[in-house]
């Protein structure tokens, strides 16, 4: 039986759509609330980032609770960068008690790329160990082997990067995540479908659900910035060329076009089980991306 509505949809062989919500830096939740309202019925689930790029923000857990309150389906992104195993387990108990059922397990970006570069990096666990920890909690005991009064049950996901320069070690890690209990994957941003095809040739055999990440580009500058500064993201030269020299509005249109083109290819070829749209800081344009993609 499915643990969450999101799992149920993935199991029904529907081409799912998820989108990313970036929480605010501060306590003014109005913009986030507006974005959740706008998207909650248009997509199958909403991820909330966990201090994305190591920038301190309103927490993922808070964003997920807001999604629940507004009647949406949240995916709790959880990194191991900022909390040790005690805090991670406690947050999972809390999340479960408040109806959150989907968790995306991530190691998290380096503290060095964020806005608190002097912070202590925790990484008590890595993403694979975090997946195992959740599976342990599901058996009714914590990591120390102590009995829980009331267990948890989650639909556990993880990430992978089909466009990594050196794919072989990534595939080994992907397999470890599957073997540890990950049932769905949301990938890093895909710009080169050839690389996604290569990855899927390997990944298909494991019978897990793969959701392709789509990062919507807004400008040439954003694309080059991501190439320089955002871990794991690589916008290829031909896409940079498409964005070059365009004014703000035209670049945004082009970015939406590129995203829609990729999504359509993925859907038509039945490459993956869905797409995960990341429109960093501009969630309001996601409906346009969906429309342009025919979703």
């Amino acid at each position, binding site marked *: 039986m499915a643990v969450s509505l999101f799992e149920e949809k993935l199991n029904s062989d529907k081409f799912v759509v998820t989108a990313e919500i970036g929480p605010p830096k501060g306590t003014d939740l109005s913009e986030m609330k507006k974005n959740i309202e706008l998207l909650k019925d248009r997509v199958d689930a909403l991820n909330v980032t966990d201090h994305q790029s190591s920038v301190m923000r309103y927490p993922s857990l808070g964003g997920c609770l807001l999604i629940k309150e507004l009647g949406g389906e949240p995916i709790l992104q959880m990194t191991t*960068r900022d909390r040790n*195993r005690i805090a991670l387990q406690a947050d999972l108990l809390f999340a479960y008690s408040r109806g959150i059922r989907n968790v995306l397990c991530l*190691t*998290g*970006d*380096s*503290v*060095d*790329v964020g806005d608190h570069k002097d912070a202590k*990096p925790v*990484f*008590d*666990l*890595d*993403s*694979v*160990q975090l997946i*195992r920890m959740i599976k342990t909690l599901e058996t009714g005991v914590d*990591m120390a082997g102590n009995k829980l009064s009331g267990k948890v049950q989650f639909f556990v996901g993880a*990430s*992978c*990067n089909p466009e*990594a*320069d*050196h794919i*072989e*070690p*990534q595939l*080994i*890690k992907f*397999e*470890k995540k599957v*073997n*540890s209990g990950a049932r769905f994957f949301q990938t*890093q941003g895909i710009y080169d479908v050839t690389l996604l095809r290569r990855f899927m040739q390997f990944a298909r055999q494991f019978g897990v659900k793969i959701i392709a990440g789509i990062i919507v580009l807004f400008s040439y500058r954003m694309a080059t910035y991501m190439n320089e500064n955002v*871990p*794991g993201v*690589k916008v290829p030269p031909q896409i940079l060329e498409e964005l070059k020299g365009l004014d703000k509005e035209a670049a945004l249109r082009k970015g939406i076009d590129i995203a829609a083109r990729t999504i359509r290819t993925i859907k038509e070829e039945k490459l993956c089980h869905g797409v995960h749209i990341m429109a960093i800081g501009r969630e309001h344009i996601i409906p346009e991306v969906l429309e342009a993609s025919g979703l």
Partner: protein
Amino acid sequence: MIVATKKPIEEILVALAPYESVLILGCGTCVTVCNVGGEREVSLLHSALRVAIANSLMQQKRFHEYTVKRQCDREFLEALKGKSEEVDAILSLACGVGVQVLADYFSDIPCIPAVNTVFMGSSSTFGIWDERCAGCGECRLYETAGICPVTRCNKGILNGPCGGAKNGRCEANKEMDCAWLLIYERLLKLDQLDRMRKYSPPRNYGNLKRPKRVIIT
């Protein structure tokens, strides 16, 4: 070996402000090898301090120079008897271990560090030192082809690479190789890739609880 870096002279001058007679004390082992705290550096620091004091409004001080074989070993500190009585403070160019042994040995003399101890490591190119051991207390190098993910991976993760490397370089520092890529390549060469496929459990931070002590018999 232990690697250290020089403290800025301004910081040393602030720490030395209250003292008139200072012993600048080098250490003849690790910090000599990394060119930070040996006899030569004692002499260079002495000159630099004289110049800095002359160029400031500070009162001139009396400096004495000496270097012992190892400051972290009490038996080598005996050579300082007769010298320590003349000074108000000792400016030590040893690592943090050396400074503490010194402070314990000369309980009534202030001991001031002149270097920052940074890590245990080695040098493969002149002047470049890299961390190679974190003293984690549970060495797994046999599983990782002799390349330590705890010290060489920015996140110290144990089950393979994160997704952040680009062109084989670490997401946190473009000058540094992705440790997990190095591990992968060497395991492949050794025909030991199975070791990377094996799940690696969380670290036992119980090994790191402070204060740490071992009894070796």
